[in-house]
Every structure is written in C-alpha cells, then in structure tokens.
C-alpha cells in the first residue's frame, strides 16, 4: 500500500489535512453554539432557578446513575424527558408535585429493585432541580428519544 507515497508527503498530508478538518470542525461548532443559544434552547427561560437546578444536578452527581439526553450511566432512567413522562406538557403542577414526591420517597427499599439514595433537598433546591428538568425537556433535540419511556 502507498508505495508511491514518500514519508514526507504522508507527513504533509497529515498536518495539512488535520488542520483543514480542525478548522472546519471548529467553524461548525461555533455555528452549533450560536444555534443552541438562539434556536434550539430557551435562552430567555434559562432563569437563575434553572441555573441553580443544574448546580444541584451536578452537586449530587445524578449523571452517574441516570442519563440526560442519552448521556450518563444508563443505570437509572433517562431524565432529559422526565418532564414529558410525568405529563408536564398537559399538567405542569401535577408533574412538579409528582417528581417532587417521587424523589422524597427514596429509597423505596424494595428488595431486588435498584435503590436511589435519599436526597434531603431544600424546597428551593427541589424546585430548581425540577425547573432544570423542565427546561431540558424543552430543548429541541431532533425528537429524541423515540418514546416517552426514555
């Protein structure tokens, strides 16, 4: 293979090509950044509470059991669309109190069922976390996942 190709030619193709593809990738990333801020996510709705909710999400490392938009540990249900699953589109108040009650009920202690630890969130943290999950559900992400089951 590549008998006609010299080492220095291969090297030049590597450096030149890599630079080209990097610049293209960086440009598309910049456009995607713009698109996310202006088109696919609700920048106006990104309130202090939603921001705080993301901090609660990170402080408790939810990602190492759950997934969010398909990324995470796959050990516990997808939460990017949990708002939809609780009927938040039709009845936001019921979804809010449903998610709240579910988290407060942990651990369920059922033998043979995966256990979610107890999290003693303040009402403020809980509301922010749910605001964050509601905001995340609103991201236009090409209609993923295929079912509300997540």
């Amino acid at each position, binding site marked *: 293979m590549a008998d006609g190709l010299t080492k220095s030619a291969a090297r030049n193709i590597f450096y030149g090509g890599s630079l080209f593809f990097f610049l293209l990738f960086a440009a598309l*990333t910049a456009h995607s950044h713009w698109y996310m801020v202006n088109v696919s996510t609700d920048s106006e709705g990104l309130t202090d509470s939603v921001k705080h909710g993301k901090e609660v999400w990170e402080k408790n490392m*939810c990602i*190492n059991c759950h997934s969010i938009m398909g990324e995470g*540990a796959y050990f516990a249900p*997808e939460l990017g669309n949990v708002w939809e699953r609780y009927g938040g589109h039709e009845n936001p108040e019921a979804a809010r109190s449903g998610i709240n009650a579910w988290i407060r009920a942990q651990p369920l202690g059922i033998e043979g069922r995966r*256990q979610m630890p107890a999290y003693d969130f303040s009402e403020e943290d809980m509301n922010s976390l749910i605001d964050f999950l509601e905001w995340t559900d609103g991201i236009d992400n090409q209609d*993923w*996942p*295929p079912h509300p089951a997540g």
Partner: protein
Amino acid sequence: MKYETQKVALPFFMVAMALFTLQIVFGLLAATVYAWPNFMAEVMPFHIMRVSHTNLLIVWLLIGFMGCTYYLMPEEAEREIHSPNLAYIQLAIFAFAGVAALVGYQFGIHEGREFLEQPFWVKILITISFLMFLFNTSMTLLKGRKTAINLVLMLGLWLAAVFWLFAFYNPTNLAVDKLYWWWVVHLWVEGVWELIMASLLGYLLIKMTGVDREVIEKWLYIIVGLALFSGLLGTGHHYYWIGAPGYWQPIGSIFSTLEVAPFFAMVVFAFTMFWKGSRNHPNKAAMLWALGCPTIAFFGAGVWGFMHTLSFVNYYSHGTQVTAAHGHLAFYGAYVMLILGVITYAMPQIRRVQPYNQVLNMWGFWIVTSAMCFMTFTLTFAGVVQTHLQRVLGMNYMEVQDQLGLFYIMRLGAGVAVAVGAIMLLYSFFGPAREQVPAGGTQITAGAGSA
C-alpha cells in the same frame, strides 16, 4: 535498555497497575449491583462505584501514557531524559491528585459532569503535573533526535493537554455544556489519543520486527492522518440529540463511519510489519500484545462503534447498554492493551533480564481479552433487547431492566475472569522473574525473511 533514565518509567508503570487493580475492584462492585441491586446500597451507592471505576481508568491510562513516553523518549531522541527528578515529582503530584479525588468521591466530594467529576483543585493539580511532564519530555525531544514516532507522540500528548482545558468550561446552558464537553471526551479518545496509540504501536513494531523505520513511519503518518480526518468531524455522532443542528446527522454518520479506517489500517499495519519482519525477537508475549491491541481496538472501537453510529440506528440505540458494550471493548483494546503491551515489552529491559514469565503473561492476555470480549457480548445482547423493548415498543425503563438480569449476571462472571487474568498479568510483570519461553515459536518465525 540503552539509556539509564528509561527506568524512570518503572514507578509510573507500578502506580498505573495499582490503580488498574482498583479500577477492576470498583468495576466488580458495580457489576455486582447490576446483578443484585441491594448490594451495598446503604454503604456505597452505585454512583460512587461508577465514578470511581471510570475515573481510575482515565487516571491510570494517563499515568501509563507518561510511563510509556519516558521509556520510549531516550531511545528515540538518543539522549537521557531532561530531568528524572522532575518526572518523579510530577508523578507524585498526579498520583496524589488521582488518589485524593478517589478518596473524596467516597465522601461525596466531587463536581458533577460525567468523567470530569474531579474537584476544581484536583483538576489544577492534574494540569500542573501534566505540564511538568510535557516540559520534561519536550525538552528531551528538542535537544535530541526527532523521529516521526516521538513527534507524533508528543503532538498527541500536547493536544490532549490543550483539549483538557475545556474541562474548565462549564456553560449554564446544558446543550452548550454538552457541545464542549465532547471537545474533551471525544477529541481525546477518538482523536488525539489515537496519535499516542499509533506512535507507541509503531515504536513496538520497529523494535520487535526490525522493519525499516522509513516504512513504519510512513504508515504512522497515514494512520494518524486517517484518525484525525475522520475523528474530528466524527464528533458529530455525539451531536445528534443534544440540541445541535440537524446537519450533524449526515456529517456525523459519514465521518464516524470513516473512523473505522484508522483502526483497520492499524491491524493491517501491525500484521504486515510482523510478517515482513526479519527479527526473531525473544519477547513473544510483547509481540502478542502488539498484534492483539490493534485487533481488539478494531473490533471494540471500530466495529462496535460503527454498529450504532449511523444516526438512524443511533436514534434507537443511543444511551442503552449497546453504548456500555462499545465503551468497554474500545477502551480495553485501544488503550489498556496498548499500555499492557508496552509494559510487557519494557519490564525485562528495565529489570535487566531476558524476557521472563512469558507463558504466564500470555495466559493473562488470553484470559483478560476473552473475558472482555464475553463481557462486551453480554452487554451487546442486553443492549439489543433493551433497544427493542424500550425504544421500539416503548416499555418502561425499569421493567425493561428486569428483563436483562441474566445478561448482567453473565457480565459479572466475565468481570471475575478479567480480575483473575489481571492478577496473572501483574504477577508476570512484577513477580519473580523465571525464564519461560514458549516452545516452538513458529508464529514468530513465520516471516519471509526470518532465519
């Protein structure tokens, strides 16, 4: 070992293997929870096991890369390491940071983005240590001989450091957060780490097959070119469902399909050099790793990656056990086997003995590798069933998981076999050196030019 300072690599290998052992322990714990969900639920919840398992992998691979670089650099640059003391200090800082993070996790001290959970000050220590490492090895390179091997290796390491800086950027917008999070995660493992992998593999092949450096280095540039041409835009396969524009679906599908090419090229490369080679190198175990690494990387990263990378497939399989299956075999084949291979090659020279414990090492190779493959198969089957039940039929997540119990028990069994094989490997590296040379050796002397 031609240069005295190559022995700097030894403590790096020892720390890396200690953390590798811990990684397997946490993996076994987490796998046990999958099989028996109440296991240790009060003492150590699953997320602590999982963060420990993944972070230990990342930390020991990085320490392993450093050890490999310190071992290789003097021979390639034809001069001693710039400062062995600096190497020991930066190892101490890196190991301290890694262990501090691990201990902190047990007490709930962490940040919250996957794989980047290290507290801020740990990230700073890691950065400082890595910069010291880059300074030390780059100074050695600058004053010494420049070869394609050490230039590509150092380029990979420097770029890894550059992209690591995105770990410090955490936007409040979750979609934007994910966009740049992949600039660390993807651009490392499916980008610049492949430069490190290909150059270390090239080094092993030059040393063990005796094929002309010009030929190997030309291959090296072709392979790393394929890796970056495909891997950069291949990041698009992570941008399908996170709120990025729709054009990532065709771009990600096409370029991430091409990501198979560098891995396939590495298989062809390794086997061609092996057959062309005229040198009958006595370290047959290291040769086995040098061939096994690209082979398993091709299946784990290449084939298993391709299996769920097309956007219309990924729409259904994204974030299921299929991803877990791919992740395990890809990391094992591409990076774990690579470092174990370099250690197998380097240890006899560092200990100044003839290749030793080779039969035990090869048993370890086959047991760990087979067990990792079996683990990958069980998770793949689990993932296919999960994809169908949950993503096609729309069944509830927890009900689906109840259907997967058998696969998770088999995965735990595979994990136990990995642990057994790993113990054999560790003993073969660090235990008393007994001369064990495999009988025959036709597999090594099959090359056309062999005597």
